[in-house]
């Protein structure tokens, strides 16, 4: 197995935290008590023993987390073509900018006057995001894409309440990410699923038939979750608007179209962006992310409070917004994530952001063309920043998408997204992102071809993969049947 970067190596085991340590050790530099001990007036009933935590030394803690880290695969480790997640390189300089002392020490409740630097960052980033999308106003508070969706759905509800209309349903394409219907349901709407056409795109006919005066509008993703641009977007949004509805755009796939598509011109009324995807902030093993929303002017009064505004040369938090849906975060959202995205946008400049989208789309198309005879293409359509295949050709050898994904691990790759979107059976969704170079893509393509050769010739290698990781395939049924959530 010389293809790909995967090799065997020494793996060091490490027990759980509480399986090591000795009472009395410490890893903390405890400050001295420089005031007299207070006579506690606290009722004994209110006092406790303190938690049962292990006592560890500094070296114990350092080794523990260093060893754990070696069991992880990150973007810095290797290619991570996880479709719909935009696992691009996370620049180091952004981490340093977010760690600027005057920024990390900033308390959120000091008021406008003492927080001008932080407020400027928020204000400027809002403007950059509206410029990038073509929308009118932005709010940075949502902590993740799903919270952005929720903000959008609350704004839908507030808008119809304001104009005195009672609407209860919402249209959502069957290719949508599961958070779309979950967010809509949380805000009191009943999702109505729209079946995609045979080419994987939105069916204007269905939208037109299903859209009525009881429906708030539609939640769509463009480019959609199959990596296809919805060419009929203008007709779809016009149809929704004609019947008084609103259009929510899930901006998860913004990385395909920076400087290329104007979402307001597409007819989107509100959208979220995933800063941890398009704007390179690290995913952190699942968060923190950021899911700012951008809206057209008529929806701006409904944005969460506070609005961040600029009067003369002073930045100001505006709380007096009677139509606002309220707050979604205790303070202003995942601020340091916003700082990293701001740093990224400034580093790239307009020209390079557009180029990033072009190269992301080029990379996906290159992989699509290179693997089209190896794997079954789900839809033979022009693709944007990601391409979707299936395991249809490998099924006859009793090899599934899961088996191929696991075999890629042995070769040194993070697998693509698998079994999503749900409309493609055995989906394999590859999003290389623009930060992978041609040599690395060529190697990945060669490895994938090798894996499909193995599927034909020696399927058990795949069924038993991965073979060289710290643990092999795990029993997920056992985990769910007898949940063990704490040790």
């Amino acid at each position: 197995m010389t293809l790909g970067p995967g090799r065997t190596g020494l793996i060091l085991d490490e027990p759980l935290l509480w399986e090591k340590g000795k009472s009395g050790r410490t890893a903390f530099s405890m400050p001295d008590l420089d005031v007299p001990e207070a006579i506690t007036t606290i009722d004994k009933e209110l006092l406790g023993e303190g938690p049962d935590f292990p006592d560890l030394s500094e070296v114990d803690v350092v080794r523990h987390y260093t060893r754990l880290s070696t069991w992880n695969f990150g973007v810095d480790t290797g290619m991570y073509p996880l479709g719909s997640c935009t696992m691009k390189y996370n620049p180091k300089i952004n981490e340093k900018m977010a760690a600027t002392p005057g920024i990390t020490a900033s308390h959120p409740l000091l008021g406008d006057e003492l927080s001008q630097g932080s407020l400027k960052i928020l204000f400027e980033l809002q403007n950059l995001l509206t410029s990038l999308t073509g929308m009118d106003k932005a709010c940075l508070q949502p902590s993740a894409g799903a919270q952005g969706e929720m903000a959008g759905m609350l704004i839908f509800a507030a808008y119809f309440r304001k104009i005195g209309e009672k609407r209860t349903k919402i249209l959502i394409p069957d290719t949508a990410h599961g958070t779309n219907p979950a967010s809509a349901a949380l805000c009191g709407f009943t999702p109505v699923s729209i079946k995609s056409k045979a080419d994987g795109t939105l069916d204007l006919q269905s939208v037109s038939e299903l859209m009525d005066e009881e429906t708030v509008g539609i939640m769509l993703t463009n480019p959609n979750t199959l990596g296809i641009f919805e060419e009929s977007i203008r007709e779809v949004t016009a149809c929704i608007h004609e019947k008084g509805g609103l259009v929510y755009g899930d901006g998860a796939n913004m990385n395909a179209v920076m400087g290329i598509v104007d979402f307001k011109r597409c007819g989107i009324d509100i959208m979220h962006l995933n800063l941890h995807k398009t704007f390179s902030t690290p995913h952190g093993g699942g968060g923190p992310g950021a899911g700012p929303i951008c809206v057209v002017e008529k929806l701006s009064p409904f944005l969460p409070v506070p609005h961040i505004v600029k009067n003369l040369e002073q930045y100001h938090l505006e709380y007096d917004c009677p139509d606002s849906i309220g707050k979604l975060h205790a303070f202003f959202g995942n601020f340091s994530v916003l700082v990293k995205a701001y740093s990224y946008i400034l580093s790239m400049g307009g020209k390079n952001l557009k180029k990033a989208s072009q190269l992301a789309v080029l990379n996906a198309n290159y992989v699509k063309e290179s693997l089209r005879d190896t794997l079954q293409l789900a839809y033979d359509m022009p693709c944007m920043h990601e391409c979707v295949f299936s395991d249809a050709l490998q099924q006859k050898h009793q090899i599934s998408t899961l088996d191929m994904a696991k075999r890629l691990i042995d070769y040194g790759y993070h697998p693509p997204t698998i079994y999503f979107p749900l409309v493609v059976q055995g989906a394999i969704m590859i999003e290389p992102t623009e930060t992978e170079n041609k040599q690395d893509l060529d190697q990945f393509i060669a490895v994938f071809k090798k894996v499909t050769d193995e599927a034909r010739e020696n399927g058990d290698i795949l069924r038993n993969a991965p073979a060289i990781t710290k643990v092999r395939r795990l029993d997920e049924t056992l985990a769910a049947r007898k949940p063990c959530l704490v040790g």
Partner: protein
Amino acid sequence: MRYLPHTDKEIEQMLSVTGHAHLEDLFSHIPDKCRYQGELNIGSPISEWALTDYFKSLGEKNSVSSAKAVLLGAGSYSHFIPEIVSDLMSRSEFLTAYTPYQPEISQGTLQGIFEYQTLTARLLGMEVANASMYDGASALAEALLMAIRIGRKKNTVAISSSIHPHYREVVKSYLQAESFTVIELKTDKKGRTDLSGLADIDGLAAVALQSPNFFGVIEELQDAATQIHDSKALFVCCFSEPFSYGMLKSPGESGADIVCGEGQSFGMPQSFGGPGLGMFASSKKYQRNLPGRLIGETQDVDGRRGYVLTLSTREQHIRREKATSNICSNQGLCALTAAAYMATLGGTGIREMAKLNFNKAEYLKNGLLAAGANLLFDSPTFNEFTLSFDSDFSKTRSRLLEKGIIAGMELSQFYPEYKDAYLFCVTETASKDTLDTVIQEVLL
């Protein structure tokens, strides 16, 4: 551009494979009427060194950067962050990984979050904990939604007015769209939640208290639990300062059913309020009703211990609109950071730190009382306390600001009924000198 690796020659070679002449041709199917007009108007690229200067100047525009001490908490606390915590958490294997969908190559994150769940449950005295929520405020909102799910036909929740005002606002945002009723419970003269009216509330699914509450007052959780359970509601206990449980009886031990709150104190810088960490725990019987991600222990095909994302049938990718929540991520790195911080402190350390915080806060409180301030509430507090002043404290506060000390926050912006009252916070990061300066200034 250093993040874009393609040479012109490579672009040409790749375009010949895809069958396009120019990069623009990759987008030829996008209709003109959807197109971005002109070029992106967001400036030229900025170099690393120019960027560093720019962010430094932004940091300096925050007056806090030159402050010696900020004696204000209110949900965001200044605590020492040990170097090992920041250093270990910046390892890119943790930082640049995503949700652990492929457990075989994510055991670092998975074991780390499993440990976080365990330490969180132990801290809060609960049986199970999830992999975290966005922040303390949204965690409280999700806890109330969870209680409503468990309560089935019950549609009302009662929340204490001594819960952080922003948390209450977030709860109202989350609960506004469905026909749920949110009732606010008054704060009594002791600064604790008045639970006397619970029996009169119909369809009560849950009652939420914060302890220590926004005024720093320690609530009598055990009594509260009895009263809340007598009214057939679930007891949701929230917090903004987890250090308090190094010293106080845990909510679980006091009878809470769901416990949630903010974990920023455990190793995260204040960073203008985010990211924080929504800690979330419950009794085991409600584990299938939990929102958010869960990590569980299992075995691999060779019988080796390992960890996976589990109980995903609660979640949106399977349940879609019937999911227990729309959250599909957690604050992964923040949760890992909190676990590393708890491990660094250890059981001995967290007890000692909690006492240190308590002693320092008591020192300032007693000093200011001796200098003529009055207690707003005569109840025990942790870390934070509220005082009222006969004289005009705002002038004292301005003088202290000139000396680089931010002393407290006026309470009336959140509670107009408490005039001339201020909320103070003291943690281990404030020196005795600073506290003495504040006391002296009040005596002037």
